[in-house]
């Protein structure tokens, strides 16, 4: 806000505006920034080598790789699914849409632990619905990567749909219709018109999905069994290090997680700024 508009307000306006700013910034500082800053200081309390050693230990590196693997598999799948689902919800009105719409919100509403438990019951080789059959086919879901991927997909499923639906509604169908009158078939229209028009909604959904997959703890803990060096993602590594009082490892890995999340956000902002310029 400019000083000119500030002068045109009466005194009480300035007071309320400043108190709002202080409230907003104070809230952010106390609840979001302070914990992150503390992690940063605690991590490097005894210099750079203790946390670096912990993260570059075989278990630490494996956790990092596994976390990134979850992102690489779950995010593209949820992106494709999310766009298709948003198109279905917005462009093809039918009776089941209301049902689909509420089912998609389930992962938001359910506690991740419950999701993990549900997957456990479904894929358990000991009496689960699918587990024994899959085990016979040689596919182990629980306590291995497939189960963790399933859990990651489940918990992060709604983001791309939720971010894409409003954008799709906003752009309407006229541009797509115009493309078809100009000779574009459905596929060409999707790639050249629809997708570029919704790209920021999708990108935002992808960022949120990535952040969620990276940070997922509850569901993954249950289906993975949290086996060090085998089925341990970064958040599980943090938790285990913390439990055995290995603070440099816990803080260092936390910092890596935080940095990954920040990088994702930053990447999107940079892309967007480049686009706007």
């Amino acid at each position, binding site marked *: 806000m400019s000083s000119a508009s500030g002068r045109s307000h009466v005194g009480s306006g300035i007071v309320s505006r400043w108190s709002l700013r202080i409230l907003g910034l104070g809230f952010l500082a106390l609840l979001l920034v302070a914990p992150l800053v503390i992690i940063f200081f605690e991590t490097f309390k005894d210099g750079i080598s203790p946390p670096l050693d912990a993260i570059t230990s075989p278990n630490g590196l494996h956790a990092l790789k596994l976390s990134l693997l979850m992102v690489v598999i779950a995010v593209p799948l949820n992106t494709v699914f999310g766009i298709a689902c948003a198109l279905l919800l917005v462009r093809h009105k039918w009776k089941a849409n209301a049902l689909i719409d509420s089912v998609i919100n389930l992962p938001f509403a359910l506690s991740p632990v419950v999701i993990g438990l549900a997957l456990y019951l479904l894929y358990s080789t000991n009496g689960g619905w699918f587990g024994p059959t899959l085990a016979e086919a040689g596919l182990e879901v629980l306590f291995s990567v497939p189960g963790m991927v399933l859990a990651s997909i489940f918990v992060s499923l709604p983001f791309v749909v939720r971010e894409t639906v409003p954008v799709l509604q906003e752009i309407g169908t006229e*541009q797509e*219709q*115009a493309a*078809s*009158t100009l*000779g*574009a*078939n459905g596929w060409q229209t999707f790639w*050249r018109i629809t997708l570029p*028009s919704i790209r920021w909604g999708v990108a935002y959904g992808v960022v949120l999905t990535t952040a969620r997959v990276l940070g997922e703890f509850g569901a993954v803990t249950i289906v993975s069994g949290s086996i060090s060096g085998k089925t341990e993602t970064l958040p599980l590594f943090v938790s285990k290090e913390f439990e055995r009082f290995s603070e440099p490892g816990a803080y260092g890995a936390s910092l890596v997680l935080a940095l990954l999340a920040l990088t994702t956000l930053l990447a999107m902002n940079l892309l967007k700024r480049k686009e706007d310029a």
Partner: protein
Amino acid sequence: MGISVEGANKSFGDFQALDDVSIEVPDGSLTALLGPSGSGKSTLLRAIAGLETLDGGRVLIDGEDVSKKPTQKREVGFVFQHYAAFKHMTVYENVGFGLKIRKWDKAKISDRVHELLRLVQLDGLAGRYPSQLSGGQRQRMALARALAVEPQVLLLDEPFGALDAKVRKDLRTWLRHLHDEMHVTTIFVTHDQEEAMDVAGQLVVMNEGRVEQSGTADDLYEHPANEFVMSFVGEVNRLGDHFVRPHDMEVVLDPDDRTQEGLVQRIVTLGFEVRVELVLSDGTEVWAQLTRAELQRLELREGQIAYLRPIQAKSFNGSSSSDSQGASTPPGSQDDGEAEVSAAV
């Protein structure tokens, strides 16, 4: 390429948008679909483009039944009311879109796009994005985009509806010139009778999903098929069963057996034209269109009594008697027309 629509039907739920509509659009003509909102005119246009699927009936372009063809294969140029500009593409990319889809090579696309940008006077704005253009410029871009692929027919859906009055007038003059140059069969939808008469050679008047009448502007104005057409293509007063255009109302100060008494309520001067509003003894409100000179000669004032004499009137009692009441009275034989009218009014 001529266009015909035969027995088109379309409903949206309970709403019958098109009710057995048939039209003929001659090759190379500029035709207006005129009607109030909800009359089905846009639905008909969209059905021709394949953007709506008909429940029944056929669309023929150049004699070929295209009813089953998807939009992208019909080779129609379509211009939307709200431009439907591709927001993420520059003006150049917008206009070149159809050519790129057709896999033209870059040099040829460039030539064609610049040629069209010159035609629509957007030369020099090729690198802009639609958000950086005015409404009129966006619509010209949309027109260039539609014309780039050399469509068989050009369809415009209320193309000037979202523009302000001045730009609208300029663009419609410009559209007429463009049509004179390109001779592509053109249909445009409008709810503005003045715009339709100004631009189009042929008009199709629609109401409640049906075609009320088609013909030239003069045909419709002089020989309207029914009350709806008469009141839609121009101003009209109702006197009992009769309809009189305001400029066919004579205002006199001396009564005779053909006049009706009225109280002058309001006199509005709109430049050259003067609008005199009167209330008849039975409470009917009517108005007469006079010139300034006539007003000065009569020395009319608000609140005085004056007498109205319809020069020509129409009644639409029965289906075939539409022209019986002196509708086509030539100016020289006014007396016959008046006699019939005064007897009836």
